[in-house]
């Protein structure tokens, strides 16, 4: 009744991981962060959590299971989707500057390309839901679409605000080059400490939970009431790829936040350590505390919430920047 995935496809999936050290490093860091997060959540709930390396065990175990394709689903699309999602995130890692450690060249990409690459995992998840050939997948598809519509607005406004601020100081109206943004902040002080930018910072902070699937906004995926939504018919290596994709999306979003708002001026080894520290602090404070304490919102509540406060903050931030300049 079900068909299995080819081992050739599996090798194609694993090759980029080994060939590109940056993605490998980001993946290891992301999984470690996830492990620490699970232990922290467990301790906040007075439990002993899983061992630290649990996410690694999960992914290695998933590689060994059988991968099934349901009958009603288009086989090539079903199996190509996780590959597409993971590859987009592998690319996105290469575009985000890590201040002091890694600087991508200007023609390699800029903020707009990164914005589109960040949208791909969400679209892949939506398509996975509708290509599953099951009603649970279709529900996951519609919920993912709603929440994506909700959070793309604030993200766009925040990116445009930061770009305008940096552009105005350089004489042009707007610049989308991430390197310019980082350099401007290294010379003039981070945007995190600039009161005019605080609405934008808050809007970005509130966009993160919906993007990464953190309660109270983890509505589309991994939800036991819709049988895990879009991922409900995936198993084995395809599912492992989805987990890898979401881990790397965490790192990309966190690194983007740090590059947009608080890159430091350190260089070399110390910079790498500081980057890791900032990522972890940021992530653990928001995700673990939220996840250990709140439940989950309904999709209409979350949608309306995003149209009220974060959108408002984004618009206010944009207006402040334009008026200041």
């Amino acid at each position, binding site marked *: 009744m079900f068909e299995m995935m080819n081992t050739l496809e599996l090798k194609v999936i694993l090759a980029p991981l080994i060939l590109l050290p940056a993605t490998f490093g980001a993946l290891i860091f992301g999984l470690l962060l996830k492990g620490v997060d699970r232990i922290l959540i467990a301790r906040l709930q007075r439990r002993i*959590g899983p061992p630290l390396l649990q996410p690694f065990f999960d992914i290695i175990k998933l590689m060994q299971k059988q991968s099934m394709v349901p009958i009603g689903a288009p086989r090539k699309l079903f199996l190509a989707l996780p590959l597409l999602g993971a590859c987009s995130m592998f690319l996105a890692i290469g575009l985000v500057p890590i201040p002091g450690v890694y600087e991508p060249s200007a023609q390699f990409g800029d903020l707009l390309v990164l914005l589109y690459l960040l949208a791909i995992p969400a679209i892949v998840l939506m398509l996975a839901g509708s290509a599953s050939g099951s009603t649970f997948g279709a529900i996951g598809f519609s919920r993912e679409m709603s929440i994506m519509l909700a959070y793309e607005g604030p993200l766009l406004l925040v990116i445009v605000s930061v770009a305008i601020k940096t552009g105005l100081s350089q004489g042009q109206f707007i610049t989308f080059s991430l390197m310019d943004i980082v350099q401007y902040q290294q010379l003039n002080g981070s945007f995190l400490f600039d009161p005019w930018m605080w609405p934008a910072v808050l809007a970005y902070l509130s966009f993160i939970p919906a993007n990464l699937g953190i309660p109270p906004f983890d509505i589309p995926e991994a939800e036991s009431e819709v049988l895990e939504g879009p991922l409900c018919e995936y198993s084995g290596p395809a599912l492992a790829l989805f987990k890898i994709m979401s881990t790397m999306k965490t790192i990309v979003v966190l690194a983007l936040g740090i590059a947009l708002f608080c890159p430091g001026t350190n260089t070399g080894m110390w910079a790498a350590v500081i980057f890791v520290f900032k990522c972890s602090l940021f992530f653990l404070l928001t995700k673990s505390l939220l996840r250990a304490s709140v439940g989950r919102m309904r999709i209409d509540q979350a949608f309306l919430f995003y149209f009220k406060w974060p959108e408002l903050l984004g618009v206010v931030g944009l207006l402040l920047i334009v008026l200041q300049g």
Partner: protein
Amino acid sequence: MSFITNVSKQSPWLYRINAGSCNGCDVELATTALIPRYDVERLGCQYCGTPKHADIVLITGPLTARVKEKVLQVYKEIPAPKVTVAVGICPISGGVFRDSYAIEGPIDKYINVDVNIPGCPPRPQAIIEGIAMAIEIWKERL
């Protein structure tokens, strides 16, 4: 490849099937995972929402006539290798509903069961003991 097997055995994912149970054993299964006192996440386990992600299947309830086809269908959707655990006395022998017209008999007539956990409902520590036994069996099947 034994390193990979050793590593993989530390992440069994659990899936519950309620085959017509009175929900007593289901409540006990919820307590072994969710409450801090009997935390099953220490063993690396996690409850998953869909049968496609599962490794260890926990079945409760006598197999009632109404639900038999559906349970067998869901059971087929769980990818190999898998370990089946019968929780409570109902799937093992019919429990108090033995010889009733509404149940199709003990589960091992239709499904290969690996571990039995008697009790009505079994203590949470007995369930954890059974799950630990099931993890050992699963490690050999990998």
